[in-house]
C-alpha cells in the first residue's frame, strides 16, 4: 500500500467545498461588493468636490472664520453623541448599497448553484469524487448565507471607514478637528451589529435559499423562470379566484408571505418587517442614538413565528434540493 493523503474529515471537506464555491464565484462574492464599495466612495468623492467647488464659487467659506469649529466647541455631550450617530449612519449607508448588490448576488448564485454544473456537465467531475450530495448542497447554502454576507460586511466596513475618513479630512480643511469627530463614531459597534446580524440573515434567508436551490437542482432548463413564474402564477390564480378567502385571509397575505418571502428573503434586512409585523416597532431611542441596527432590534426577529416557520420550510426545501441533486440524471 502506498502512502496516502491523511483521511479527510467531513469538516475539512466542508471547508474545501465552500472554498470551491468561492473560487467559482469570486466575481459575485468578492468583486461585486468591492466594486460597489468603490463606486460608492467615488460618488461621495464627487459629491464632496462638487460641494467644495460650488462653495468656493459662491463665496461660502464655512469654517474659514472658525464658525464650524466654534459650533463644535459649543456642543454638549448629547449633541456630540448625535454627531457619532450621524457618522454611524454614514457607515451603514455604504453598507446599504452593498447589501442590495449582495441580495442580487445571493439570489442568482442560488439559482445557478445546482444548475450550471449540470448544464456544462462538470457535475460529472464533481460526482466522480467521494463527496456526498448533502455535503455539496449544504456547502452552497453556507456559501450563500454565511460566506457571501460575511465578505460583504467586511467590504462594507472598509468602504464605510474610508468614507468617514474622506468626510473628516474634508472638514479638517475647514478647521474642524478630525479625530475629535471620528472618536464619536462607533466602528466596532457597527461592525459587531453587522456581523451579529448574519445569524438572523441565515435563518431568515433559508426558505428563499431553499426554494431557489430546489429550482436550481430540479429545473431541466431556465431555473429562473420556474423559480419566479411558479409562485407568481399561483399568486395570480389565488387572487383571481379569491382562494385565500377560504382561510379568512386576503390575497395580499399570499403575495407577502409566500411570493415575496419565498423569493426575496435572500435580500438582507427583510427580517425587520417581521418585527414590525408582530408589534415590535422599531425603537429609536434618543439616548442610544439612532442605533437601529443594534442586535436587540435585529435579533427580535428570532422571537417571531414567521422566522421559524420559514426555517422549517427552508429545511424541507433544502432536503428536496439534496434529493434532486442525487437523482436528477440529465447530464
Amino acid at each position: 500500500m502506498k502512502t496516502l493523503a491523511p483521511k479527510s474529515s467531513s469538516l475539512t471537506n466542508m471547508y474545501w467545498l465552500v472554498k470551491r464555491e468561492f473560487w467559482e464565484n469570486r466575481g459575485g462574492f468578492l468583486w461585486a461588493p468591492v466594486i460597489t464599495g468603490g463606486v460608492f466612495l467615488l460618488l461621495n468623492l464627487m459629491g464632496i468636490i462638487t460641494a467644495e467647488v460650488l462653495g468656493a464659487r459662491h463665496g461660502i467659506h464655512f469654517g474659514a472664520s472658525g464658525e464650524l469649529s466654534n459650533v463644535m466647541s459649543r456642543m454638549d455631550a448629547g449633541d456630540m453623541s448625535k454627531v457619532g450617530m450621524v457618522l454611524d449612519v454614514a457607515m451603514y449607508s455604504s453598507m446599504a448599497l452593498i447589501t442590495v448588490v449582495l441580495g442580487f448576488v445571493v439570489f442568482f448564485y442560488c439559482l445557478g448553484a445546482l444548475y450550471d454544473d449540470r448544464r456544462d456537465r462538470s457535475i460529472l467531475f464533481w460526482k466522480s469524487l467521494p463527496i456526498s450530495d448533502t455535503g455539496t448542497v449544504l456547502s452552497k447554502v453556507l456559501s450563500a448565507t454565511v460566506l457571501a454576507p460575511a465578505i460583504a460586511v467586511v467590504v462594507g466596513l472598509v468602504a464605510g471607514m474610508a468614507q468617514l475618513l474622506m468626510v473628516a479630512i474634508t472638514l479638517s480643511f475647514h478647521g474642524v478637528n478630525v479625530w475629535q469627530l471620528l472618536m464619536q463614531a462607533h466602528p466596532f459597534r457597527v461592525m459587531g451589529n453587522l456581523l451579529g446580524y448574519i445569524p438572523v440573515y441565515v435563518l431568515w434567508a433559508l426558505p428563499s435559499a431553499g426554494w431557489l436551490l430546489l429550482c436550481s437542482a430540479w429545473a431541466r432548463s431556465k431555473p429562473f423562470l420556474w423559480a419566479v413564474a411558479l409562485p407568481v402564477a399561483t399568486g395570480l390564480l389565488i387572487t383571481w379566484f379569491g382562494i385565500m378567502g377560504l382561510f379568512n385571509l386576503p390575497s395580499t397575505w399570499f403575495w407577502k408571505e409566500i411570493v415575496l418571502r419565498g423569493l426575496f428573503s435572500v435580500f438582507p434586512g427583510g427580517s425587520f418587517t417581521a418585527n414590525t409585523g408582530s408589534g415590535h416597532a422599531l425603537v429609536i431611542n434618543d439616548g442610544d442614538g439612532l442605533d437601529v441596527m443594534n442586535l436587540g432590534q435585529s435579533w427580535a426577529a428570532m422571537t417571531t413565528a414567521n422566522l421559524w416557520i420559514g426555517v422549517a420550510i427552508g429545511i424541507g426545501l433544502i432536503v428536496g434540493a439534496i434529493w434532486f441533486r442525487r437523482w436528477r440524471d440529465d447530464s
Partner: protein
Amino acid sequence: MNAVVTASGLSKHYKNTAALDNVSFTIPSGRIVGLIGPNGAGKTTALKAILGLTPFDGQLSVMGMDPRTDRNKLMEQVCFIADVAVLPRWLKVRDAVDFVAHIHPRFDRAKCEALLKRTKLTPDQRVKQMSKGMIVQLHLALVMAIDARLLVLDEPTLGLDILYRKQFYQNLLEDYFDEDKTIIVTTHQVEEIEHILTDLMFIRDGKIVLNTEMEAMGERFIELMVGADRADAARALRPIDERTVFGKSIFLFDGVERARLEALGETRRPSVSDLFVATMKGTYA
C-alpha cells in the same frame, strides 16, 4: 475469482424504450473491459448505473456495494472520466490538485504533480485556457493519482487528435494499470484500444450480445480470405459476414473449426471493428 462488478437482471427504462434490458454480467478484477456498442445502445446507462448516477431495476454490486445506496463510500474506490471537457471552465490546475488532495482520501499528490510535470500545463492555468487535449491530460493526471480499484472511462478520447489519444492509453497502461485495478472503457475508436483490452462486451438495444475474453474471441471468431473460386465453398459454412477486398472475399465465421477453414484459404483473427460491424448489422435500419 474476485468480481469487481456483478450485475444480474439489470434493467433501466426511459419512458417507452429500454436502455438496459435484463442484463447480467460479471467483471473480474485486473481486467480492461471494452464496452462497445452503437449510439444509444445503453453503454452510458450501464456505466451510470455502475457509478450510482441513475436509478435502475435489478441487482448490481460494485465491490460488494450497491451504487444506489453506498455511492459516497463507493466513490473512494471508483474513478471515472466521463467524456472530455467535463472539468469546470473556471478551475485552475493548482486549485484542482489542492481540492482533490483534500477531498479524496486515496489521492497521491506527489504522483499527480509528477504526472503534470510531463505536460505543458502550468499551475495558474485555467481549464478555459486549455485545449481539449490538455483538459484530458489534467483530468487523467488527477485520476491516475487516485489509488482506485475501478476506473470507468466513457468516451475519454472523444474529439482528441491521434497524438493525445495514443498518449492517453499509453499513460494508463504504463503508469496506472495493474492486477489490482480494473478498467471499463467505452469508445467508438475501437481499433485504438483493441490491443489493450482483455475483455470485450458488445451491447445492442440494451442487451449484451457478446461477452468474451479477447483470447477466447480469437478462438471463436475466425476471418477467412479466399479467392473467388472458393467463395461458394466458404459460404456453405455459413459465415456471419462477408465482404470483398481487391477481388478476394473475406468471410467471418463464428465457431467454425479452424482446420476446415484453413483448408479453404488464409485465416486470421478478426479485428474488433470488423467483428463489431458484423454483429451490429442492421442496427440503424
